[in-house]
């Protein structure tokens, strides 16, 4: 049993070197050209560790060790640095380095016998990927605390959101959203009514330690339907050292006067290989304020609970996880309209008909959604060969929507209940002749029903999907190749009531393939070039096939099309990464996505007539489409303390058959932020303080016309000013983290193209959000 040992620090020889340097008379101000390099080694075997992360905390700069275990940092200035070295399966080390001259320092790590396997997966993704990925973690994630999942992910380049008023936000990746974006919540495919643009993912972002987005078709690992991409929401790994810890967060905001309390307790038994965590949060907000008026009935509340119990031995481990999510979301009262005349009246109004005044009360129309997730996971190490993992997930999603009708008592008008069982068996095998990979199989069984005498917007259905996949990675020298393939067999059995024919039972079987081939080439110390071609295929959803009902917020009568076939996408992405530089670091990603049989909702030129008058008719159509665009993100260090950050994304989309525009595509956007990091003074109680000011510009969706948007032309471009600040306070041994985030600081009145309520009201005005986090 190895006792914890610090790696070889060679402090004594460092001190000697420092003195020598001063003797040489090198001027300190010219000392920003120092290099720190060395090898990362396994302490026991002395073997090099490939892909270990070495991070300089003070500079927020990181690098990975190469295939020989070598790492290097260039352009370092003289001074003291703290290196954090992390590697999967090893204990994280922190090493202090005092740089006075270019230094070679070998770093050794100790095997972590207690490491949870779950971390292994995350770590693998942290390494450079063939496919374009973005990660929201650390400071950036903290700045989103208090926002919904969809709003939080907008921090990432290439990710935007489809909104319904200020309360509902769904992630959009490269212009694609809804069922094309697969969300993995703690390793389980999140299954809910994601066909609805006004249905936000039922996930508590406060429980996440990291959110990762894979951009572009990525159907191999989690389901061939991931045409748009994958969102991975990962909670923190269970503690691996004995004891009990906790954390309390308080978040508040102006504007909608939101208040959030979140608490976490976790621990590990010292005698047993058992660890546990309990996380809970509660949120309440009143009606949001646009700059010129109150957005009537836009308050919301949310309650969350998550409990984890983990058992971990060297070769075998298991985890049980349960989470509960409940939300009640008010809908803008003036967006609930009857017919086309009402819609025309609403569009013609300068401000919504009902503005009311601020209140926490939520009246009709509102949504009430509950989501339960139970997950059981086990792994078994198959000796030298690799590891077997089995995951079972049970989810129940109950969605109730309360329309604003006459005396309906407490009854909802839409009441959907969906149960999903998912299983997954995966074998991760260790490298055999430079090839490592994952082979697995998964199943989904899903049953959707609705309560009697509620709106039959979506029929009863049972979805059974069985899939198998293999994904392998080959690595040699500077080149890494990845290839994967998947097959899903999906059967969909629908039961719908027809007034004249009784219960109809149409049934479908879809065969969906997914595949990918990618390469990553290390062009030297500062450039990596990666490219990926992937194919994914998504079977139409029951809603797209059989939607039949009125959508009050759009005065539209939505109709499915039972003749739809699977849509399939060929997606090509090329990414150039420029990294480990003193001043400029960044990434440019170009993509080209050809989607055949792209399914979209198009407002028809003719009306549906009913007792309430004329409604817009929106039909699900299918066409060959093309999406292309670019994501650019870079950091430029103007000085050691001042950093400029840019995130720009452009999306283009065309209907290839008619050469016309597609509706509801993300307009181009660019966000530029200047961040100033304060120096940590030894005597000061403040640590890691920073101030940031930035501006977001979203262009007008000029690629739209009367055919793509017959109701109302796309709104104008807008510019929003935002600011962030944060620090850590040290009271003796107690640390307190403080943060402040301001959005729409100029209180600009604007409307967003991808907000479904753009016909009716302006977006939220200025909001200042403040947060306090106290580790206990």
């Amino acid at each position, binding site marked *: 049993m190895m006792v914890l040992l610090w790696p070889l620090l060679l402090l004594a020889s460092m001190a000697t070197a420092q003195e020598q340097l001063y003797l040489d008379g090198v001027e300190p101000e010219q000392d920003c050209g120092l290099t720190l390099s060395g090898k990362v080694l396994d302490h026991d075997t002395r073997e090099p560790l490939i892909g270990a992360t070495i991070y300089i905390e003070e500079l927020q700069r990181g690098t990975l060790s190469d295939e020989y275990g070598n790492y290097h940092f260039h352009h370092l200035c003289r001074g003291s640095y703290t290196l954090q070295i992390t590697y999967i399966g090893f204990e994280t080390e922190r090493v202090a380095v005092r740089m006075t001259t270019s230094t070679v320092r070998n770093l050794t790590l100790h095997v972590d016998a207690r490491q949870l396997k779950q971390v292994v997966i995350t770590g693998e993704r942290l390494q450079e990927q063939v496919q374009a990925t973005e990660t929201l973690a650390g400071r950036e994630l903290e700045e989103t605390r208090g926002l919904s999942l969809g709003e939080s992910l907008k921090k990432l380049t290439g990710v935007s959101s489809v909104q319904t008023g200020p309360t509902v936000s769904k992630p959009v990746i490269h212009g694609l959203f809804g069922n094309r974006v697969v969300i993995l919540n703690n390793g389980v495919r999140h299954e809910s009514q994601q066909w609805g643009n006004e249905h936000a993912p039922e996930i508590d972002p406060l429980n996440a330690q990291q959110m990762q987005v894979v951009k572009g078709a990525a159907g191999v690992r989690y389901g061939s339907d991931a045409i748009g991409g994958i969102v991975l929401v990962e909670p923190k790994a269970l503690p691996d050292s004995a004891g009990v810890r906790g954390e309390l967060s308080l978040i508040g905001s102006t504007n909608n006067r939101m208040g959030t309390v979140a608490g976490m307790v976790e621990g590990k038994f010292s005698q047993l290989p058992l660890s546990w965590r309990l996380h809970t949060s509660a949120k309440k907000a009143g009606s949001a304020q646009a700059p010129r008026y109150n957005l009537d009935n836009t308050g919301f509340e949310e309650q969350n609970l998550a409990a984890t119990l983990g058992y971990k031995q060297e070769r075998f481990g298991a985890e049980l996880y349960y989470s509960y999510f409940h939300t009640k979301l008010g809908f803008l009262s003036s967006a609930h*309209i009857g017919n086309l005349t009402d819609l025309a009246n609403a569009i013609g109004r300068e401000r919504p008909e009902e503005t009311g005044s601020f209140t926490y009360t939520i009246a009709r129309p509102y949504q009430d959604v509950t989501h339960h997730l139970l997950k059981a996971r086990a792994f078994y190490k198959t000796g030298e060969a690799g590891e077997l993992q089995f995951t079972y997930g049970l989810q129940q999603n109950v969605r109730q929507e309360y329309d604003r009708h006459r005396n309906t008592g407490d009854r909802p008008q839409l009441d959907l209940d969906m149960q999903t069982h998912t*299983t997954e068996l995966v074998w991760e095998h260790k490298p055999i002749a430079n090839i490592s990979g994952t082979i697995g199989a998964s199943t989904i069984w899903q049953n959707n029903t609705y309560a009697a005498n509620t709106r039959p917007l979506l029929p009863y259905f049972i979805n059974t999907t069985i899939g198998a996949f293999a994904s392998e990675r080959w690595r040699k020298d500077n080149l890494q190749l990845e290839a994967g393939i998947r097959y899903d067999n999906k059967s969909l059995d629908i039961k719908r009531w027809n007034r004249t024919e009784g219960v109809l039972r149409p049934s479908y079987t879809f065969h969906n393939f997914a595949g990918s081939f990618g390469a990553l080439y290390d062009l030297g110390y500062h450039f990596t070039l990666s490219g990926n071609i992937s194919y994914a295929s998504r079977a139409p959803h029951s809603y797209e096939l059989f939607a039949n009902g009125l959508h009050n917020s759009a005065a539209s009568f939505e109709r499915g099309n039972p003749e739809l076939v699977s849509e399939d996408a060929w997606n090509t992405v090329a990414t150039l990464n420029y990294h480990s530089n003193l001043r400029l670091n960044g990434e440019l990603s170009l993509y080209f996505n050809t989607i055949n049989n792209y399914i979209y909702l198009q407002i028809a030129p003719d009306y549906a007539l*009913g007792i309430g008058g004329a409604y817009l008719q929106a039909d699900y159509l299918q066409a060959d489409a093309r999406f292309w665009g670019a994501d650019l993100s870079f950091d430029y260090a103007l000085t050691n303390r001042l950093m400029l950050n840019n995130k720009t994304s452009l999306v283009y989309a065309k209907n290839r058959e008619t050469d016309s525009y597609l509706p509801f595509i993300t307009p181009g956007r660019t966000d530029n932020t200047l961040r100033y990091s304060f120096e940590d003074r030894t005597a000061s109680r403040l640590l890691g303080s920073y101030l940031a000011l930035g501006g977001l510009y979203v262009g007008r969706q000029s690629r739209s016309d009367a055919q793509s948007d017959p109701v109302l032309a796309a709104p104008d471009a807008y510019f929003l000013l935002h600011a962030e600040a944060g620090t850590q306070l040290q009271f003796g041994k107690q640390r307190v983290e403080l943060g402040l985030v301001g959005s729409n600081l100029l209180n600009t009145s604007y409307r967003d193209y991808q907000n479904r309520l753009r016909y009716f009201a302006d977006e939220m005005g200025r909001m200042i959000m403040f947060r306090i986090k106290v580790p206990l």
Partner: protein
Amino acid sequence: MKKSFRPYLAFLFMGSLLSFSACKDKDDPEPDHEHDVVTTVTLTLTPTNGGQAITATWEDLDGPGGTAPQIDKLVLRANTTYTGSLTFASEEAHGDHTDTHDLTADIREEGTAHEIFYFANPQGLVTITKTDKDANGRPIGLETTAATTAAGQGKLRIVLKHQPGTKSSTSNENTGETDVDITFDTSVQ
């Protein structure tokens, strides 16, 4: 031996789940119907000087789209005054029988949030005056008097507006949310 046995165990587990789940496929959807959606509007006009009452019904059982609504023609006598009453119902066909849920009482009860508007085209074909009042003394329009003068042909449009919080002395047919917007072909003989 043991190693290779484990995956089979897991697959068995998955298989048993599927078969367990498949057994649950028993319940069928009930006849689909929302009790709050108006399907049927009936206008009843009784001559004040006695005589046969006239009823006209506008009915669309399957909602927007689908089968076209059944609309009666409204035939009135010239130079006559009628007492009018309007009813709203939600009906559903259950194959062999029809269930009816009356919504008129709900509308009357929530009178402060509802108003019915009548528009004759050409103007004066029939003149409708609302005679009922809500709790705030504002007209509702379920009870009316209807008066005709000269003979003619035209249309009568009836609009039910849901105006929660917005019904006032200045509210009109453009205020609030439209629940019903129907038109009867009308003939005054």
